[in-house]
């Protein structure tokens, strides 16, 4: 009912943005995780967002959820390093195809979206508190 729905909506969005921040941090952390086998290389993950239409009581206040986490299909980068302990028979090692600049930009976008929702949450809280104390 009314302003109480805003808390659910903003909360679901903060949750979704947290998942996004989590995937970005694993991508950045594993940007240099090399492997001797191209099939075992870490693959960049990214969440797919979806509007929560089914569970909404009122279709005008809809939250958001993470539908799935996609794995990048980009081919791993190949480096010729025969002295590397993980190198395969041909002397190659494979590292994930992660663009750190892209991930950093994505991180800033996620954190701004999170902040937006915190702001919405706070404003709605203030409005509700003022409504509750009406007539005192």
């Amino acid at each position, binding site marked *: 009912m009314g302003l109480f729905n805003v808390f659910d909506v903003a909360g679901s969005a903060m949750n979704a943005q947290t998942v996004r921040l989590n995937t970005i941090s694993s991508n950045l952390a594993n940007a240099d995780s090399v492997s001797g086998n191209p099939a075992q290389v870490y693959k960049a993950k990214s969440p797919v*967002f979806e509007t929560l239409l089914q569970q909404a009581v009122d279709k005008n206040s809809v939250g958001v959820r993470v539908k799935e986490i996609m794995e990048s299909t980009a081919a791993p980068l190949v480096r010729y390093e025969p002295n590397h302990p993980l190198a395969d028979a041909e002397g190659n090692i494979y590292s994930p195809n992660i663009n750190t600049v892209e991930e950093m930009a994505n991180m800033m976008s996620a954190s701004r979206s999170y902040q937006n*929702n915190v702001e919405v949450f706070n404003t709605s809280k203030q409005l509700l508190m003022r409504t509750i104390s009406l007539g005192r």
Partner: protein
Amino acid sequence: MPISLDNVFGVHEAALKLRAQRTEVLASNLANADTPNYKAKDIDFQAAMRKATALSSAGTLKTTQKGHISSAGLGGLDDFVKFRIPTQPALDGNSVETHVEQAAFAKNAMEYQATLRFFEGKSQSIVTAIKGGS
């Protein structure tokens, strides 16, 4: 002039409800700012307000038979929820423009507080009238 306690707050009652509902719609837009294919929505406040005041001044129709449709339920808020036309549509089908929504949200919050002030003023007047200023 007799005061009817039923409609002391007049138009502000409908206004406060509409403002709260608009807050919900705008919050959903901001929450879905990164959702592919989400289309931003907003309430046509003026039209919704006109309908609300017309209903309250015209009164409501009586339902005396089973098949009668109550006039209060005719056309809910959904009639006034419109999709926003984006100035720069995104390639992923999302039409939320965060800055536009933020501005609308802030303005709506201010207007909500203004309506609350009217409520406070009205209720204080009634209390003064009852107590006789003592």
